[in-house]
């Protein structure tokens, strides 16, 4: 495991014996690495934590009145499976996830997520976007698990996939397991190509086909990257993504 801390807003960071982080104040983390070591993150009483994860497995444990904005960015890895598991172990927790993956050439990218709601009155919002190009394969499996006793939960999961090639494969498996009453849960998954209507609209205004396609792909991704609140990290990741789009 390697970790890079970016931004100057982090004030306290504790690493326990299990190689975990405990964050007790505002912070922004970039956890980077290509090995498969798992990171455990514990958050208590803090709702302003942002984690930008460049595809490394993690478990996030959220306690009473805490919250986290997790950004998962999966790019340029030949074969990568990212597994993350979120445990909502307190009431009043906000979990927000925005994820983007771009699979190119013969990449095989997997994103496996589970969100466990174990305590009542918390919410989780997950937006997972995948782009498949060339002959790549992307697998997304997202489970929302609401245990008995987690009444008043509000869980939302949306998965949107964009196929940029006839040979690309995207497997999506959104899934809900609900054992509590009085919960609001929804999930949805759509997979499509670039919209011909949008392309026609842009070309009618004078934007050539290639540029129109790029604008549309950027638009698909921007929703995720723009939400990264750490400016330097946002710019860095946007730059990497624009470079990828340029080559598509």
């Amino acid at each position, binding site marked *: 495991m390697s970790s890079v801390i970016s931004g100057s807003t982090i004030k306290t960071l504790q690493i326990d014996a299990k190689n975990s982080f405990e964050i007790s104040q505002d912070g922004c983390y970039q956890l980077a690495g290509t090995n498969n070591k798992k990171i455990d993150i514990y958050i208590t009483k803090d709702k302003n934590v942002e984690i930008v994860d460049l595809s490394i497995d993690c478990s996030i444990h959220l306690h009473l009145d805490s919250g986290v904005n997790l950004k998962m960015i999966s790019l340029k890895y030949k074969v990568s499976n990212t597994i993350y598991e979120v445990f909502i172990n307190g009431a009043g927790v906000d979990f927000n996830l925005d994820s983007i993956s771009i699979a190119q050439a013969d990449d095989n990218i997997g994103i496996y997520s589970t969100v466990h709601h174990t305590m009542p009155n918390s919410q989780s919002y997950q937006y997972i976007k995948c782009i498949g190009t060339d002959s790549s394969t992307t697998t997304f499996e997202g489970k929302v698990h609401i245990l008995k006793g987690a009444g008043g939960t509000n869980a939302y999961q949306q998965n949107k996939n964009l196929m940029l090639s006839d040979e690309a494969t995207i497997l999506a498996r959104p899934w809900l397991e609900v054992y509590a009453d009085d919960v609001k849960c929804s999930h949805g998954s759509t997979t499509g190509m670039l919209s011909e209507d949008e392309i*026609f*609209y*842009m*070309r*009618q205004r004078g*934007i050539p086909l290639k540029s129109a396609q790029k604008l549309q792909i950027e*638009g698909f991704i921007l929703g995720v990257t723009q939400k990264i609140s750490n400016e330097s990290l946002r710019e860095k990741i946007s730059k990497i993504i624009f470079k990828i789009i340029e080559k598509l």
Partner: protein
Amino acid sequence: MLYINNLHASIEEREILKGINLTVNKGEVHAIMGPNGSGKSTLASVLAGKEKFTVTEGTVIFESQNLLDMPIEKRAHEGLFLGFQYPVEIPGVSMANFLKSAINEQRTYRGEAPISASDFLKKMREKSAIVDIDPKLISRSVNEGFSGGEKKRNEIFQMAMLNPKLSILDETDSGLDIDALRVVANGVTHLKSSDNATIVITHYQRLLDYIVPDFVHVLYNGRIIRSAGKELALELEERGYDWLIKECENE
């Protein structure tokens, strides 16, 4: 400016346009009316280059060039603008980014330098006033979450920004309340000059109270069955299309 000669077009083997003839000169406003399914929107789409339609016969000359040979974006660069009946939402693409790209592509085509940031902002301010569009909308994604009326205003705003030679407005009045209709129509009238031309496609005479046409054409079953002055629109409002269709069938 525009010469349409015996234009036939079909979609999935079904012929929609069955021999359209129409000449539009600079400075003119033409209204195309007609019942549902007569081919009005198809005509607009074919002129803009929508690929799902196949032109099977006929020619279209725009500014001395063969329009039907040009890709969609080149038609725009040459000055053809289509105001969409159903403006498309483009999530994630901001109005500003979209319009700046469009303007700069058109400028590049004409051999001009890209527009400066300050000129662009100035132009946005100036033109948004014409259709009274909320400046906040301009910072949003293209048409995303806009109301029906806002989308139509946005079409005319884009028309003002791009300053086309020929504007084809496809049922710009549909779904507009009377105040929005007036704003949109005034915008179109404001943009009218002796150098450009407008084709207004509409169901109702109502819009033509504000955008006064030089010619009114009735499209029925893929053909123009009657062309006359603006008084024809009033007659249609009063009597409907049936009498005209009967007259045409008797001939």
